[in-house]
């Protein structure tokens, strides 16, 4: 039990560090990859809803510490995105196929970005953050790159998880003759 908590804690720190220090320096396009979001969605798929929410809090908290946005923006965005992703997973993408997961990460990426820039825009109105051009050309280019790399990552991870675990494999009931 404690080992599992400790392992999750270490993985949360590593995921945050990769997002914060590694992906941000990568060449144009790749620097938009939302590794933290992909990690949360994969956790939601292979583990449980509550584990994914703990991850959202952990990753959000660490990114908020290093962010110059008001504290809580990442926490709130990751949390609400996991809520939306879980709602979609439970009510629509129930067949656990590759296509469902790709659709799920696609919608989650859109949800995260709109929530994130909604918060920035909202804070900008009240003068908390400096003015940025939300929904401008750069926003759409970045979003496209982010969705592309997020989908690619989930595509690869789906086969990796399938290779090492039975969790994502469909279950067929056999009728006894």
């Amino acid at each position, binding site marked *: 039990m404690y080992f599992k908590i400790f392992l999750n804690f270490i993985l949360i720190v590593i995921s945050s*560090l990769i997002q914060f*220090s590694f992906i941000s320096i990568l060449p144009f396009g790749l620097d938009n990859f939302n590794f933290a979001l992909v990690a949360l969605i994969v956790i939601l798929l292979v583990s449980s809803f509550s584990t994914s929410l703990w991850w959202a809090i952990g990753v959000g908290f660490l990114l908020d510490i290093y962010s110059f946005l008001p504290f809580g923006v990442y926490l709130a965005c990751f949390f609400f995105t996991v809520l939306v992703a879980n709602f979609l997973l439970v009510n629509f993408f129930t067949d656990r196929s590759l296509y469902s997961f790709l659709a799920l990460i696609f919608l989650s990426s859109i949800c995260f970005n709109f929530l994130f820039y909604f918060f920035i825009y909202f804070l900008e109105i009240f003068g908390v953050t400096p003015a940025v051009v939300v929904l401008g050309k750069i926003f759409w280019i970045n979003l496209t790159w982010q969705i592309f790399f997020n989908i690619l990552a989930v595509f690869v991870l789906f086969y990796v998880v399938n290779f090492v675990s039975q969790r994502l494999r469909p279950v067929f009931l056999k009728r006894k003759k």
Partner: protein
Amino acid sequence: MLKVKTKNNIFMFVAVIGLLIFLHFLRILNPIERAIIYLITPAAEKIYSVGTDLRTAVNEQTDKRDLLSVVKNLEAKLNQLTIENSQLKTMGEENEKLRQQLKFFSKNNFNYTLANVVSRGALDDSLNQGQAVIIDKGKRDGFSAGLGVLNSQGAIVGKIIEAKENISKVCLVTNKGCKLAASIQGQNDQKTSGVVEGDLGLTIKMDFIPQTEKIKIDDIVITSGLESDIPAGLVIGKITQVDSNSNEIWQKATVESLMDLGNLTIVSVISPAVK
């Protein structure tokens, strides 16, 4: 029954998030945040350094094709600079002798503090196209908004725009929101003042240059010293294009930074010396 349990779970998580935000603004979480930053910043520096190496490798691969023509141009420039260097050395020696005779003391009232770059901002900086970096020192080390930031060669790369207790955000000179008071080192030691500002995250634009001033391509742009926290004479870049329309009151120039701002790992921050 299951739905009620899930609902309760969600409320618990909302309460946790609310509590974290509340405690942060009450500064109760400050020691924990400081400890986390203290513990994970060394790892962040290492990971950032690996990312920088990877980025450099990719850029080098892309630039290989243009390398031959660049080498030829550089050879010509090297010859020119060797001549200039020998002249400057002679002048430097003369200057040193004169200073000794006049018992001249250096008026350098600035301190330089080294800092490591740990990130280019997580996802919040994507609209700025990565034209800001986060360094591992902040208010505790005496950093505040407006202080100049230099690279390892001593050229100015940007200035601090925001400082937290343990980290600071530096806008790079190519960032649209980053403005610096600058002057152009023209021929015959003539100096033209203006303001430089980043343009599209790629180049730097210098504005408010009077039409009467003569500027040309390859002139060096330096800091003018009009900002209290940034000394004069720090190299910003060189002019690559001059936009001089006679109908306009001011001239504009496009300035290119002399160094690759994508490879910054260690920087030094200039702070006024405590008297």
